[in-house]
């Protein structure tokens, strides 16, 4: 078919549908066959099993159950990330400070979220909209002491993206002590840490030395195959409160390995 005809065919679809798409109406999204999963619902069976194992086998059993594995990659280990759809549009990165891997998952449930609580400074971001990314960089001026420009970032990931040994990478930042936890009432494995990246002075450019800081929390649900990352500079206590009050639901879609062009992802940064 000629491209002119193709334009014409698409142009003549039902006007009702064209009008419907004039503006996005998030309320209509709930009409879709989605299953809302509030995080407070416990995965009773799984958790009971985990609790029994923990009791009987102690910490070792708990560690074996944890759905995130972390390691410091070898300096020579490289990770390739495509960033533009052309043969040269990729980035090879070695010298990652931390790599986190997940269980092999053929299918991940796609999720979206909305914050149930946000600090007063970010309250303008609180609404009924379901999202899969929230960025507060537009409100950076509310936090004058920040080292970077991202007060709060929340992003979702699918474990199926990271099959075949793929990893979420923490590239530039160096993590402090990593705390692993399980939040019973949210039924998620949790990994959280403060991290920093130091930059030496560059007198030739008149730049003093400086250090960027941020906190990161990863929430992982291995049964459903999703991960939520919260990061930013609102402080770990507040970040934890945001995480514990997140409302999460499934969209009804599943994500597979083939849906992703890249099979690594970055954890640091997150502005834009």
């Amino acid at each position: 078919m000629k491209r002119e005809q193709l334009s014409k065919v698409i142009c003549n679809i039902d006007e009702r549908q064209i009008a419907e798409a004039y503006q996005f109406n998030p309320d209509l999204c709930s009409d879709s066959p989605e299953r809302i999963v509030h995080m407070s619902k416990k995965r009773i069976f799984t958790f009971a099993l985990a609790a029994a194992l923990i009791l009987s086998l102690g910490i070792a059993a708990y560690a074996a159950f944890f759905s995130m594995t972390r390691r410091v990659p070898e300096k020579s280990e490289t990770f390739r990330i495509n960033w533009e759809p052309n043969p040269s549009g990729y980035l090879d990165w070695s010298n990652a400070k931390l790599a986190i891997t997940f269980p092999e998952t053929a299918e991940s449930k796609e999720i979206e979220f909305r914050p149930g609580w946000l600090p007063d400074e970010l309250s303008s971001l609180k609404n009924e909209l379901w999202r899969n990314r929230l960025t507060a960089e537009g409100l950076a001026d509310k936090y004058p002491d920040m080292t970077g420009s991202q007060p709060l970032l929340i992003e979702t990931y699918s474990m199926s993206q990271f099959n075949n040994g793929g990893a979420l990478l923490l590239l530039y930042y160096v993590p402090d002590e990593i705390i692993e936890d399980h939040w019973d009432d949210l039924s998620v494995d949790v990994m959280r840490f403060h991290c920093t990246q130091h930059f030496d002075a560059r007198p030739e450019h008149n730049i003093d030395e400086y250090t960027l800081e941020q906190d990161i929390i990863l929430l992982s649900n291995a049964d459903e195959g999703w991960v939520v990352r919260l990061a930013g500079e609102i402080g770990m206590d507040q970040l934890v409160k945001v995480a514990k009050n997140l409302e999460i639901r499934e969209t009804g879609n599943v994500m597979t390995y083939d849906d992703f062009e890249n099979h690594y992802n970055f954890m640091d940064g997150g502005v834009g």
Partner: protein
Amino acid sequence: MTHLEDSKIISLFYERSEQAIAELERKYGAAVVKTAANILSSKQDVEECANDTYLGVWNTIPPQNPNPLISYVCKIARNIATLKYHSNTAIKRNGQYDLVLDELEECIPSAVNVESDYEAKELSDAISRFLDTLKYEDRFYFIRRYWYADSISDIAAMTQRDSHLISVHLFRTREKLYHYLKEEGLLV
């Protein structure tokens, strides 16, 4: 800024009042310009397209009494913009709209036979029926991308979704549409 209701704007057209065009432009001018600008790359072409759109509405209302008015107006804008786009030389064309057509050709390949207006209408109707089977969000992504010719990042900003996920959804919808049209016997 308050806008007149669509029915009042249409009444003004029926009265042949020139205020009709001013009110139409005030309410839907941004949508007309966006629709044209997504298809045409030249600012001058976009302005001409917007003016031709208002003239087109003026010439057709009455006798038409469209409801909803927005899709009627945008459709005229889109028709004029695509005519202009296809008559432009390759160098003047908008790369984004080229990409939109490339993506559409994945699910409506050139082998599809739409020699007559009737066949083209049949295909448009089949696509509409298919779109009705989709979830609201997927239908929204599809129409914004292939009818309004929005960029993926524009759609992401409108819906507060990640661009990559929207691309994935669109890819799957194109695949579903291909199979739907095949089952309907519309693909050779």
